[in-house]
């Protein structure tokens, strides 16, 4: 995918109307409230360097704000299954629901699916009892337990500022022990503090430490990726210049880690793109906050720096699209073109008048490890510029089907291939 040739532009869309979508379980979609009148006097000049200089001052300027997820799960009969579309020959169904703020996914040795949360305090477990799925809460009272990973019977949980574990969890789902903390040398900043957690081929736990801001020079504790041993020892910083990564996985053959990174807000509606990166060695710097998307010097911190100093992304994932969880497809039931390609969940934008994302895309990965074209895989979460769902993470099951978590509905979707699955052209 080629990089955009657009250079930085401070022109925001400045079109009309408020964008609001209230989604509350069992509640009908509420209409946007009437436009509030602007205050009588806004004569004060903007301070020098304000990024709002040049913004069209229309009375109905759209106000962009993060789109809040409902704090309770959607009722099973209110799930938007009929809105979701997968390529021809694939089937979409509800895997499980009733998990408010369902986020990252991990698979236990006995088939239990563990689900973290970001806005709430819970870790869930989905148990498949002969096709009937049951949801349990196996940990609560945690602080943004977004990251979950599993190895040799042990569940690892990444909260905002600590990593913990529960051993032998699959045999104790109805009476789970409290997690034991294994690592807590982490900053406590809320902003971009929630973590993705995964275990590499080297048997180490990997996680990011996001930037505690929209855009700032990081301390030596932030804007990086770290790894630790499974007992919490041996922490090392392995990469810098990562604003916030909420998804990563290892190439099944080359074993290199690929990760998504969410780029900054409030530069423009169309720039910079979120990134898909590939780490080829320890110690690389991926650009934030000096350079975004490989070729866009930051308007504030890019002065005196060159983008060529940093490692560029291998693919652009859309501006503000919020590329999050991702997995290399390693199953055998999808058509062969999916093998060792990456499925990426795009949570969907808020810093953009016309939203993008709200889908799962397939990023083609070539034999040399670089990225080829990107095509839609599971779409429909974005409907008429409003969210009916928001995908967060992807998990490949032993039967080759793919699970997709959705923190808007508090549900997990399942996409499986039929006998005549064919690849479809982009929708």
């Amino acid at each position, binding site marked *: 995918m080629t990089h955009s040739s657009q250079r930085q532009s401070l022109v925001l869309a400045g079109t009309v109307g408020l964008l*609001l979508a*209230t989604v509350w379980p069992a509640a009908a979609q509420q209409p946007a409230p009437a436009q*509030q*009148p602007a205050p009588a006097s*806004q004569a004060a*000049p903007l301070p020098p360097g304000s990024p709002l200089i040049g913004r069209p001052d229309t009375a109905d300027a759209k106000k962009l704000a993060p789109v*809040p997820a409902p704090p*309770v799960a959607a009722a099973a009969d209110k799930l938007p299954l009929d809105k979701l579309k997968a390529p021809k020959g694939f089937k979409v169904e509800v895997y499980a629901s009733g998990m408010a703020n369902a986020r990252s996914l991990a698979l236990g040795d006995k088939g239990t699916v563990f689900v973290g949360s970001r806005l709430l305090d819970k870790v869930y477990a989905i148990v498949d009892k002969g096709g009937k799925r049951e949801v349990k809460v196996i940990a609560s009272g945690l602080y943004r337990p977004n990251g979950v990973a599993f190895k040799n019977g042990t569940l690892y949980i990444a909260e905002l500022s600590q990593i913990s574990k529960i051993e032998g969890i699959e045999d104790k789902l109805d009476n789970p022990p409290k997690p034991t903390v294994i690592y807590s040398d982490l900053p406590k900043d809320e902003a971009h503090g929630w973590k993705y957690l995964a275990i590499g081929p080297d048997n180490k736990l990997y996680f990011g430490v996001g930037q505690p801001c*929209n855009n700032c020079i990081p301390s030596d504790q932030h804007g990086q990726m770290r790894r630790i041993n499974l007992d919490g020892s041996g922490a090392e910083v392995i990469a810098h210049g990562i604003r916030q990564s909420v998804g990563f996985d290892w190439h099944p053959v080359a074993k290199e880690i690929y990760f998504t990174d969410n780029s900054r807000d409030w530069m423009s509606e169309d720039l910079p793109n979120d990134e898909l990166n590939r780490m080829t060695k320890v110690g690389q710097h991926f650009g934030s906050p000096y350079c975004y998307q490989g070729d866009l010097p930051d308007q504030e911190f890019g002065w005196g720096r060159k983008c060529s100093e940093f490692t560029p992304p291998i693919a652009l994932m859309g501006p503000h699209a919020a590329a999050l969880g991702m997995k290399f497809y390693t199953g055998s039931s999808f058509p062969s073109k999916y093998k060792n390609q990456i499925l990426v969940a795009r949570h969907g934008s808020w810093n953009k008048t016309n939203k993008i994302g709200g889908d799962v895309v397939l990023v083609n990965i070539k034999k040399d490890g670089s990225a080829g074209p990107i095509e839609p895989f599971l779409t429909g979460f974005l409907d008429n510029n409003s969210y009916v769902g928001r995908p967060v993470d992807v998990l490949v099951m032993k039967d080759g089907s793919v699970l997709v978590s959705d923190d808007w509905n508090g549900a997990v979707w399942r996409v499986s291939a039929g006998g005549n699955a064919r690849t479809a052209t982009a929708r």
Partner: protein
Amino acid sequence: MRSLAVGAILAGLAAQAAGAQPLEARLPTCFACHGENGTSQLPEIPSLGAQPAFYTTVQLLMFRDRLRVTEPMNEMAKGLTDAELQKAADTISKLPPPTPVSNTPDAARMDKARALSQQHRCNFCHQANYAGQENVPRLAGQREDYLLKALRGYKDNSRRGYDAQMSEVVYDLKDEDFVELAYFLARQK
């Protein structure tokens, strides 16, 4: 003294174990602290008038589930069902907007703070008239001391938000900015 009144109320609360009462029985206690008509007279206790229902529901849920720990609110929200949380939020959203500070404001301070608010885009999420929307609270006419407390809480991570947006917003702000913003917002109608 107001604080003695609050103490008496809280003592009464403990005796009655608010956590076991239905919503209707708790509402008088809510209004005793937060004010019956949307405006709080008690230091650092927020006015609730005209707060967006989504925001209030989420905050009550956070108190109930101890995602935000601030007594007596955890006790006040204990055991309420999701439907009761929403009902409480709807009731609160219909209270009249709080009465803003009415003395003649220092025009220079107001101008500077207005520019600060525009620069940091407070008037985006909170809207141009600071009435809030969805998960974003109303700021117009809120108690000045409460606004200051909230901003400081986001800055030192002692106040947990639903998402982490405010934490990101205050990263670039200093305490003297909070003082000016609180002054300005408390005087917005």
